[in-house]
């Protein structure tokens, strides 16, 4: 293997890890502030200017808290579960092109760790592996709330993986490739996939909420029903890893949606890169917006929505796309 390639990849991995760990922290700040403003509160104000250093205070708290392994838990699984959530969230980032290619000191940098030809499949697959975090964490804990949460996690993820996969199938048929770079290039020539596949866009967007466990489908860890679900018995940095995983997932899915449906970073100009960040920011904001406005659904409503509404729609969408492409 080429040495330069190796060094470049390692640098990219480190940069992505650092940037998105920090973003996950700042994401919690934005969530608190935006939720607070929407509910006519102020949010964090005391630590640092506008409460910006609240993230640091939370980090210090999480890192220095005692790492408690309760008596009746299955210790090895209990310990590994949060790592799965955080690790898979960051692994999924490997196939996401965050920026168009640019040149630094005469060296062309592709801001994607690995442009593999199954990019979107890899991203969704690894994100789906993240389900083992809540599932194993909940089942390894020794209380009913965690167990309920694990059962719900399994149900939610299995249902919504179907919708995610089927809704993305129609754009994949049109592009004819699974690489996210190819998705981007296809949209330079043919316009945004959003205009040709609006239904797939909406379905994928809805499924993204289940994929990240955000509010309309937050029943995996619904505070008012099952305490913190799988996180009930976790403390300190292990709980923090779940948190980082959730927020990193939100950021990555907010990148994936615009790349697949909204033209990605466009033709590679600086404007395109900024536009991608703008779109990402909107989708991240929408996660928070929805959390302020909408109630959570019950597990049975969620199943109903998935299997009786979204999945048939996705299948119909795929069939129609197939017919249109054939004739």
């Amino acid at each position: 293997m080429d040495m330069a390639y190796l060094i470049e990849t390692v640098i990219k991995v480190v940069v992505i890890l650092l940037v998105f760990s920090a973003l996950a922290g700042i994401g919690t700040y934005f969530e608190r502030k935006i939720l607070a403003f929407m509910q006519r509160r102020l949010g964090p104000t005391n630590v640092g200017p506008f409460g910006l250093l609240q993230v640091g205070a939370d980090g210090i708290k999480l890192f220095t808290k005692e790492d408690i392994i309760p008596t009746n838990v299955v210790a090895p699984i209990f310990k590994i579960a949060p790592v799965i959530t955080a690790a898979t969230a960051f692994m999924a980032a490997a196939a996401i092109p965050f920026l168009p290619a640019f040149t630094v000191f005469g060296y062309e940098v592709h801001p994607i760790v690995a442009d593999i030809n199954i990019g979107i499949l890899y991203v969704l697959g690894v994100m789906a592996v993240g389900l083992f975090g809540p599932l194993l964490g909940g089942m390894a804990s020794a209380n009913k709330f965690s167990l309920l949460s694990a059962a719900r996690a399994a149900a939610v993820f299995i249902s919504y993986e179907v919708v995610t996969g089927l809704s993305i199938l129609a754009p994949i048929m049109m592009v004819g490739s699974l690489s996210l770079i190819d998705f981007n290039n296809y949209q330079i020539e043919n316009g945004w996939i959003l205009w040709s596949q609006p239904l797939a866009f909406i379905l994928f967007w809805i499924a993204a909420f289940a994929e990240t466990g955000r509010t309309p489908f937050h029943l995996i860890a619904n505070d008012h029903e099952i305490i913190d679900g799988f996180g009930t018995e976790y403390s300190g940095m292990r709980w923090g890893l779940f948190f980082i995983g959730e927020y990193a997932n939100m950021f990555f899915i907010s990148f994936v949606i615009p790349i697949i449906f909204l033209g990605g970073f466009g033709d590679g100009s600086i404007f395109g890169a900024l536009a991608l960040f703008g779109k990402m920011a909107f989708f991240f904001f929408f996660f928070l917006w929805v959390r302020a406005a909408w109630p959570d659904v019950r597990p049975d409503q969620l199943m109903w929505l998935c299997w009786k509404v979204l999945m048939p729609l996705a299948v119909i969408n795929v069939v129609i796309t197939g017919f249109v492409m054939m004739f």
Partner: protein
Amino acid sequence: MEQFNNRNVADNGYFMVDIEDYPTDGWGKFKRIVQRTFRLELFVGLWVVMREMIKFDIHTISYPQEKMPIGPRYRAVHEMKRLWESDAERCIGCGLCEKICISDCIRMDTKIDEESRKEVTEYTINLGRCIFCGYCAEVCPELAITHGGEYENASDQREHFVDYDYMLTPIDVMKANAQKEFEGFGAITPHEDERVKKTPLSY
């Protein structure tokens, strides 16, 4: 007043909310779902929270820096008042407050002084026990013990005593004519009449 005398509520702008019958068959349920989906009901909620964010009408009070004014009827830590005429203590040591205190948190000790008047030698209130019911202030024949507005009385112990000297109006405050009278249990908040609403009891 008239609007309360007229008890025929049906003509007063009240109307029945139009609630559709709950669908029983599959087709009805399907129609309801389609209606709800394409009427974009979810976006009403999104608009409401976005509107509140844009209006930025924040209701938070940054508590240690900002404080709400509290009403004159508020019953917080007790105060001992002085007489306006002579600046002497109002308390005559009758012991009624100690007697009536239902949580038994007032303890006082008195003696006969050289002018053969009763003088308070010890007077403590255990705020850990006090339930701030206001009986002591109500029973006091001299309006000596009253409630003040000092509500920041967090303590690191359950037993938290305040004594006579702590509660007594300082003599320099008294000289400056700055002693505040407790307006009592019937007192209303200033400008309350602007906010008060008529209730059906007004007739």
